[in-house]
C-alpha cells in the first residue's frame, strides 16, 4: 500500500497499516528532519522493523541529500537475516509500485559466518586465523596454501562488485554468489559495505573499539544508524571496554613475547631488512607530521625499535604480574580490592620505568610489529594484544574506569585471581557514534523509563517517544502476584533465601499454573543458583513430578547447544498438544531474542525479582559511578535494570495482534509503585489495578482460567485500529 506522511511517499509492503506503525513513522520523520538522535519504544511484535525500514528507505529515495546511508545494527546473526528479508520485502513492494531506487543492501558478518573455503570453514574456532594465514598481504599469491576465493577477489574485485546488480544480499546470498563466481564472500561484503545504501551488521562493528577502527574510515556523516533491540546497549558498551587479565593470560603473553623475540633475533637477512624498513618508515612519518599535532602513528622514541619495544612490553607484563601477585595475597582476607586508575598507572610506571606516551601507543606498535614479522596467527597472540589493550585503556581514559582484583567467579575456578579493568561509563563507546553520524536511533520493545537512556549514554535526543499498542481485546493480561493462598508473602529476597515456605508456595503456584495454561508455559527465575535451590526443594516436595504430568518439563542449561536442543523439544511438545513448561533464567539466552509466538508462549511467569546482585563489586562500583556522574541512585538503577529485564521476558509472549498471553510477575516487590512506574506503558495500561494487582496466587489462577476461556472465543481485529489503502 502507498501513503504520504507530510511530503514523504511511503510504500508499505503489507495491506494493513496499524495506527501505531503510522505514529512510529511520524516520530521517525521528526528525528530525521531535525538531523538528531532519537529513542523510540514500540511494543514487540507490532511490525517495528518493517515500518522502520519502509520509512527510512522512502526517505533515502526522496531526500538523497539529507541522508545517504542506513546502518542497521542487530544483536544476532538470526536477527540480521530476518532484517535483510524485510528489506527485500520492502524493496520488492517499491519495485511493484514502479519505483526504481537502485538500492543495494548487504549484511556483514564475521569470517566464520561467511567463509566458503572448505579447508578453512571446518576449523570452527580457528577460521579467523586460518583465513589470515591465506590472505595476508605478505603471502605470496599462487604459492602454497592460499585461498583461491581470495585470489580471485584480488584480481577482479572492482569489476565484480560493479557488475553486481542492485539487490539485497543476505549472508546466504553472499555465500551463494561467492560459490558461483569463486569470489571470497567476506571480502566482497566488506568492499560492498562502502558503497551499499543499506548495511546490516552487528552492534560490535560500531561499538567495539578494536573492530570499529577498521571501518571508521568509510563512515559517511549523512547516515542513519539504527540500533534494534537497544534496551541493553549500555551493557554492550561497557562490556566492549572492559578487559580482564589473569595469571595464565599473562604467562601466555610472556610466551608470545619470547616467540617474537626469537624471530627478531634470528639472523636471516630478510627479517632484519624488514625491521629496518619499518624503523625508517616510522622516522619518516615523524618528519612528515607538523609539529605539536598529536597523531596516532607517531610512535615515541622509546619503543620505536623492535628490540626496545620487546623490552618495554616485558617490563609492562612483569609489573602487571607483580601487581597481581601482591593483590592475590591481600585477596585472601578481603572480597575484592579496588584501585583508582590514576594511582594504579603511577604505580605501574614506577615499577617498570615506563612513560605514558609509549603506553598509549603500545597497541598500535604491537600491530605494526606483528605485521612486519608476518605473523598471521592472531588468535595465538591474543594474550599479548589483550595486555596491550589493558594498558592502553588504562592510560587513555581516566574517568569511569577502575581496576578491580577479585576471585574469578566467572569460570568457576575460585582460586584464580582476576584483574579487571572495568569500564562503568557506557557513554564512552557511544560518544564516537553520536558524533560521527547525523542520526542515531535507538529502538526496542521495552525502553521504559525512556529518560534514563539519554542520561547514561550522555546524549540529547530530539525525539523520545513511547508508542502505545491498540488492542481490540485485552490480549495481554499482566498479573502481579504478591501472596500465596495462606497469606505468606511471595518473594525472592535474599533474606528469605532459606525459607522453605516461600519456595514451596512458588512450587505450588507453578503446579497450579501448569494445570491451567494450555500449550506453552515459560517460567523465568532470577539466577541459576536460585533455580537450582528451588528445583532441589521442589524435587523433594514432589512438585516437579506433578508438574511434569501436566506439561513436559524442560530446564535451560548453561550450555548453548543443549539449550537450543531443548527449545526444539519445547516447540515440538507444544505442537502435538502435550504442552510444555520451560524453566529459564531472566538474564539467560532465552530471555533475549527468542520469540514464543502463538501457542508456543501462552503464559510467561517471572518468579522472583531479577535484580542484579548488589553485593557484586563491579555492580556496586558502577552504581557509585552513575550516582556521581548522572545522579542516578543505586536503587533506581538496580530497579530499572531488573524491570527492563522483566519486561523483556514478558514481551516474549506477544508477537502480533492475533496473539495473546498472560504475563505473571510473582514477587511482592513488583507491586511497589516505583517498579510499576518503570513498566512500559503498553504493559502498564493493560494491568487491571483492581483485579490483577497485589493478589494471591489462588485469585491469579482464577484470572488465568477466565482469560483463556475469553481468548478462545472467535475474534476479529477491530476495523478502526488499522488502515487499508481505501481508508487512508
Amino acid at each position, binding site marked *: 500500500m502507498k501513503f504520504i506522511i507530510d511530503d514523504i511517499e511511503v510504500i508499505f509492503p503489507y495491506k494493513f497499516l496499524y495506527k501505531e506503525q503510522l505514529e512510529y513513522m511520524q516520530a521517525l520523520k521528526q528525528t530525521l528532519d531535525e538531523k538528531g538522535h532519537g529513542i523510540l519504544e514500540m511494543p514487540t511484535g507490532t511490525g517495528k522493523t518493517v515500518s522502520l525500514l519502509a520509512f527510512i528507505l522512502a526517505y533515502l529515495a526522496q531526500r538523497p541529500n539529507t541522508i545517504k546511508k542506513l546502518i542497521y545494527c542487530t544483536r544476532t546473526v538470526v536477527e540480521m537475516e530476518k532484517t535483510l528479508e524485510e528489506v527485500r520485502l520492502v524493496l520488492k513492494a517499491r519495485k511493484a509500485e514502479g519505483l526504481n531506487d537502485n538500492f543495494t543492501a548487504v549484511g556483514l558478518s564475521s569470517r566464520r559466518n561467511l567463509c566458503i573455503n572448505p579447508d578453512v570453514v571446518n576449523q570452527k574456532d580457528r577460521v579467523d586465523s586460518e583465513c589470515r594465514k591465506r590472505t595476508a598481504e605478505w603471502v605470496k599469491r599462487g604459492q602454497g596454501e592460499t585461498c583461491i576465493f581470495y585470489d580471485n577477489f584480488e584480481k577482479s574485485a572492482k569489476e565484480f562488485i560493479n557488475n553486481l546488480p542492485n539487490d539485497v544480499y543476505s549472508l546466504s546470498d553472499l555465500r551463494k554468489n561467492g560459490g558461483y563466481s569463486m569470489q571470497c564472500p567476506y571480502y566482497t561484503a566488506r568492499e560492498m559495505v562502502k558503497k551499499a545504501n543499506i548495511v546490516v551488521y552487528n552492534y560490535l562493528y560500531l561499538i567495539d573499539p578494536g573492530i570499529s577502527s577498521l571501518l571508521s574510515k568509510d563512515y559517511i556523516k549523512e547516515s542513519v544508524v539504527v540500533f534494534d533491540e537497544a534496551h541493553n546497549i549500555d551493557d554492550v558498551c561497557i562490556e566492549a571496554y572492559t578487559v580482564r587479565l589473569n595469571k595464565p593470560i599473562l604467562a601466555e603473553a610472556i610466551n608470545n613475547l619470547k616467540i617474537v623475540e626469537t624471530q627478531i633475533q634470528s639472523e636471516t637477512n630478510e627479517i632484519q631488512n624488514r625491521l629496518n624498513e619499518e624503523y625508517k618508515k616510522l622516522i619518516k612519518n615523524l618528519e612528515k607530521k607538523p609539529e605539536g599535532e598529536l597523531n596516532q602513528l607517531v610512535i615515541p622514541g622509546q619503543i620505536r625499535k623492535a628490540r626496545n619495544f620487546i623490552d618495554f612490553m616485558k617490563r609492562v607484563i612483569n609489573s602487571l604480574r607483580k601487581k597481581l601477585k601482591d593483590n592475590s595475597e591481600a585477596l585472601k582476607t578481603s572480597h575484592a580490592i579496588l584501585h583508582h586508575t590514576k594511582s594504579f598507572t603511577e604505580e605501574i610506571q614506577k615499577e617498570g620505568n615506563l612513560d605514558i606516551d609509549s603506553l598509549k601507543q603500545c597497541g598500535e606498535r604491537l600491530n605494526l610489529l606483528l605485521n612486519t614479522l608476518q605473523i598471521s596467527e592472531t588468535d595465538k597472540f591474543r594474550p599479548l594484544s589483550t595486555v596491550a589493550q589493558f594498558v592502553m585503556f588504562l592510560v587513555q581514559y581516566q574517568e569511569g574506569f577502575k581496576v578491580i582484583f577479585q576471585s574469578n567467579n566467572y569460570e568457576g575456578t575460585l582460586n584464580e585471581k582476576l584483574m579487571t579493568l572495568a569500564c562503568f561509563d557506557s557513554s564512552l563507546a557511544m560518544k564516537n557514534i553520536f558524533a560521527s553520524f547525523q542520526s542515531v536511533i535507538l529502538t526496542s520493545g521495552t525502553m521504559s523509563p525512556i529518560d534514563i537512556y539519554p542520561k547514561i549514554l550522555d546524549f540529547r535526543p530530539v525525539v523520545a517517544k513511547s508508542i502505545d499498542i491498540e488492542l481490540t481485546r485485552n490480549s495481554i493480561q499482566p498479573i502481579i502476584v504478591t501472596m500465596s493462598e495462606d497469606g505468606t508473602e511471595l518473594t525472592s529476597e535474599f533474606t528469605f533465601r532459606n525459607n522453605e515456605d516461600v519456595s514451596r508456595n512458588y512450587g505450588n503456584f507453578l503446579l497450579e499454573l501448569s*494445570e*491451567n*495454561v*494450555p*500449550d506453552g508455559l515459560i517460567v523465568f527465575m532470577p539466577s541459576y543458583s536460585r533455580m537450582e535451590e528451588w528445583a532441589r526443594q521442589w524435587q523433594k516436595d514432589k512438585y516437579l513430578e506433578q508438574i511434569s*504430568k*501436566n*506439561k513436559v518439563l524442560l530446564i535451560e542449561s548453561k550450555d548453548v547447544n543443549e539449550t537450543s536442543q531443548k527449545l526444539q523439544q519445547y516447540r515440538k511438545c*507444544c*505442537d*502435538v*498438544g*502435550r*504442552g510444555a513448561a520451560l524453566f529459564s533464567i531472566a538474564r539467560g539466552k532465552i530471555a533475549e531474542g527468542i520469540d514464543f509466538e*502463538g*501457542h508456543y508462549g501462552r503464559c510467561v511467569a517471572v518468579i522472583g525479582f531479577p535484580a542484579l546482585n548488589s553485593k557484586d563489586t563491579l555492580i556496586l562500583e558502577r552504581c557509585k559511578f552513575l550516582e556521581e556522574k548522572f545522579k542516578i541512585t543505586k536503587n533506581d538503577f538496580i530497579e530499572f535494570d531488573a524491570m527492563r529485564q522483566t519486561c523483556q521476558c514478558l514481551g516474549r509472549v506477544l508477537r502480533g495482534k492475533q496473539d495473546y498471553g498472560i504475563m505473571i510477575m510473582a514477587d511482592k516487590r513488583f507491586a511497589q509503585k516505583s517498579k510499576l512506574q518503570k513498566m512500559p506503558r503498553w504493559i502498564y495500561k493493560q494491568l487491571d489495578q483492581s483485579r490483577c494487582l497485589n493478589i494471591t496466587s489462588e485469585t491469579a489462577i*482464577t484470572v488465568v*482460567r*477466565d*482469560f*483463556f*476461556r*475469553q*481468548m*478462545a*472465543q472467535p475474534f476479529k481485529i477491530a476495523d478502526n485500529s488499522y488502515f487499508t489503502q481505501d481508508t487512508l
Partner: protein
Amino acid sequence: MELEGNTKFNEYEEKIRNHQVNGHNYQQDKLHQKKESDAQFLIAQNPLIMRNLLIIIDITRSSKIGDFKPSRLAVALQFLPAFIEQFLECNPLSQIGIAVAEEYRCKTILDFTSSSVNIKQYLSTIHSINEAGFSMAACLQTALHVFSTTQLHAQSSILVVTTSTYSDDKLDLNEWSEKCKSAAIQINVISFTGSINQLIKITQATDGQYLCPLNEFQFSQEIQKFVSPQESKNHMIITQLVKIGFPQKLIVSQPTLCQCHLEIVYNFYKCPVCYSKVCSPPLLCPICSTWIVLPHQILRSDGSNTLGVFEITNDGLDHVCSGCLEPTTVIHSTCERCKNFFCLDCDILIHSKFKVCPGCA
C-alpha cells in the same frame, strides 16, 4: 426437563418485557430469529439423515476443578441429558454412544443406542477419577474402533468434552487424526479450559467445531449447536440399499428380556424379520441386522419433502395463525403448499422442532 421449563419461562419473560418497551424491536428480533432458524433448517436438510454421535467425556483430575459450579464434570453431566434428548428428537434416525477418557485410555461405557432413558442412566454412573492423563489419540483410537461397526451411509461424528489443558498421548496424535479424517469422522470439541492449538487444528481438518463456553449457561447454549447436523466437506457420500423393517409394538404383563440391551422390559417392539424383541427403535436388529425404524421417524427426518421455508408476507391484513389459532397482525408467513398463515413464533417452532407443517398434515 427443569431446564427446558426455565428457558421457556425466560423467553416468555423476555417477550413480555419487549412488548412493553418497544413492539417494533420485538418484531425485528423475531424476524432475525426466523432467519436464523431457517438457515439452520436448510442445513438440516442434508440428505444424511442418519447420524451416529459418540460423546467422549474427560473424567481425569482436571474435571474436578470447581470454576464451573459445582465442578466441570458435574456441569457437563447436568446439561448433556437435555442435549441428548433434543438431539434424538431432531434427528430421529440417529444414535448416541458414550465413552469416558481416563488415564491414557478411553473406555466406551455405552454402545450406540437411541434410547435416551438408557443414556441418562449410564451418564449418571460417571465419576471423576484422581489421575491426570487425558489422551486425545486414545479417544480417537476408541472412536475409530466403535465406528467400524456402524453403517457407512451414516454421518459419524465425535463430541469430546475436555477439561484438560493438554493431550498426553502415548500414540501419535497426527496419525490417528489422519485416520479419522480419511474415515470421514467429524471431530468436535467442547473445552472448559481455553484453546489448545493442536486440537483446534484437528477439528478444523475434519470440519468440526471447537467451542469454549465461558460459563454454565453458555455451555448449555453452545452444546445446542451440535443438535443439527453440520456441513461436512470431506464426507464421502456413500449410497447403499438399507434393509428397513417396521416393527410391531407389544405391551405384555410378564417381564421380557430385550435383545438389544439385555434388560427386562414390559413394552417392546418385535422385529418383522426375525421376531426378536427390541426396546428402542431406531436400531440395528442385533440378530438379523435389519434397520428397525418407526414410520414417523422416517417421515420426520425426511421433512424436506413436506416442509419448505415459509415466505414472509407483509400485507397488513389480519389473519388467524394456523398454529396457535391466535390472530396475527403485522408480519406473518405462509406455507407455500397449503397457503396457511402462521405467526413468527409458530414458524420458528415448526422449523426448529416439529419439521412438519400442521396445515399440510
